[in-house]
């Protein structure tokens, strides 16, 4: 029985569960099937193809071609490489399913801010594909550092305190090969979605609700939202969340000292149930 709301990916690849909690999508079998089908083949090819697509796409922004370029880019991304926001509680469940798990450097941050490898271990590479990364460390900057599920959960918990959004990424949909810890604007997923309405990153299965009885207007949550969905309402002296903008990442919930915010499944709100 489905515990939460169903996005398109759950309907296609969830087998009744939330798709990123379906162990099938992490399996070696799925990896091999997708690798055989995908034109790109390997992860580096995928990164390079995605980059070229993005480069072409961005040069078309504002032109007449943008709507059709956008559709074709989204079509490619949905079959090759897209992400979905996952709150911390669900990410910990994911880390019990994924194997092996390794910390790796973040391509987005390296490209956008020039971070050196030492300060750039923000992502987790998961699944059998990681063994290839281990064999050819020169292809994947910074190499791979295999860790246990417990270490991986500590890793994401620390990053959650720092204030980054947990996201899960396909490498040949529906095979899930990576987990990233994102922020605006360096993450091309969040940036693409917010600035260009490019559906490369999908909203999560929850939205955040503020309990005005518990909120004291301290504004800690406002600073944590990477999507601009939460603001301080001076007339009420409380935090206020725009549910149409909320991606359900849960950073406001984990950052609230008074436990005044909680994540509610998206399907409970009819207008939001289809808003991905």
């Amino acid at each position, binding site marked *: 029985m489905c515990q939460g709301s169903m996005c398109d990916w759950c309907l296609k690849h969830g087998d009744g569960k939330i798709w990123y909690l379906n162990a099938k999508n992490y399996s070696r079998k799925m990896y091999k099937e997708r690798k055989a089908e995908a034109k790109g083949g390997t992860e580096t090819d995928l990164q390079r193809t995605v980059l070229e697509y993005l480069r072409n796409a961005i040069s078309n922004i504002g032109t007449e071609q943008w709507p059709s370029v956008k559709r074709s880019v989204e079509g490619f991304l949905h079959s090759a490489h897209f992400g979905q926001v996952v709150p911390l509680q669900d990410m910990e469940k994911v880390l019990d399913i994924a194997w092996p798990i390794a910390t790796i450097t973040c391509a987005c941050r390296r490209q956008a801010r*020039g971070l050196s490898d030492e300060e750039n271990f923000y992502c987790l590479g998961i699944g059998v594909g990681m063994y290839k990364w281990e064999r050819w460390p020169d292809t994947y900057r910074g190499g791979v550092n295999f860790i246990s599920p417990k270490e991986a959960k500590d890793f994401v918990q620390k990053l959650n305190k720092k204030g980054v959004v947990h996201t899960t990424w396909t490498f040949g949909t529906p095979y899930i090969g990576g987990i990233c810890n994102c922020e605006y604007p360096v993450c091309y997923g969040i940036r693409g979605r917010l600035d260009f309405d490019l559906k490369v990153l999908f909203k999560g299965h929850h939205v955040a609700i503020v309990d005005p009885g518990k909120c004291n207007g301290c504004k800690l949550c406002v600073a944590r939202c990477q999507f601009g969905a939460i603001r301080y309402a001076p007339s009420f002296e409380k935090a206020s969340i725009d549910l149409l903008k909320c991606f359900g990442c849960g950073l406001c919930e984990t950052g609230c000292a008074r436990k005044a915010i909680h994540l509610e499944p998206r399907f409970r709100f009819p207008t939001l149930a289809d808003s991905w």
Partner: protein
Amino acid sequence: MKLGNIKIEVDGSKCKNPMECQRCMRICPQAVFAAIPTKPKKYELSKDFSLFAPFEAACVLCNLCTSACPNNAIKITSRGGEKAP
């Protein structure tokens, strides 16, 4: 000059090592720049990176990048051709 009409060109001969310098990339409030391998090769660690401005549409002409660049490698113009203020 309207937002979205801005063209940012990076002179590759002046910007040799963007990943080591990083000044414009770090200081830009709109994260306009990106540095990617010039010639990506499978299974090889790229040492040569090229800087370009994929998000020039977001540029607000703060000129923090041109001030920060030690080699004057960044040129900002409008699509019409006039030089940025």
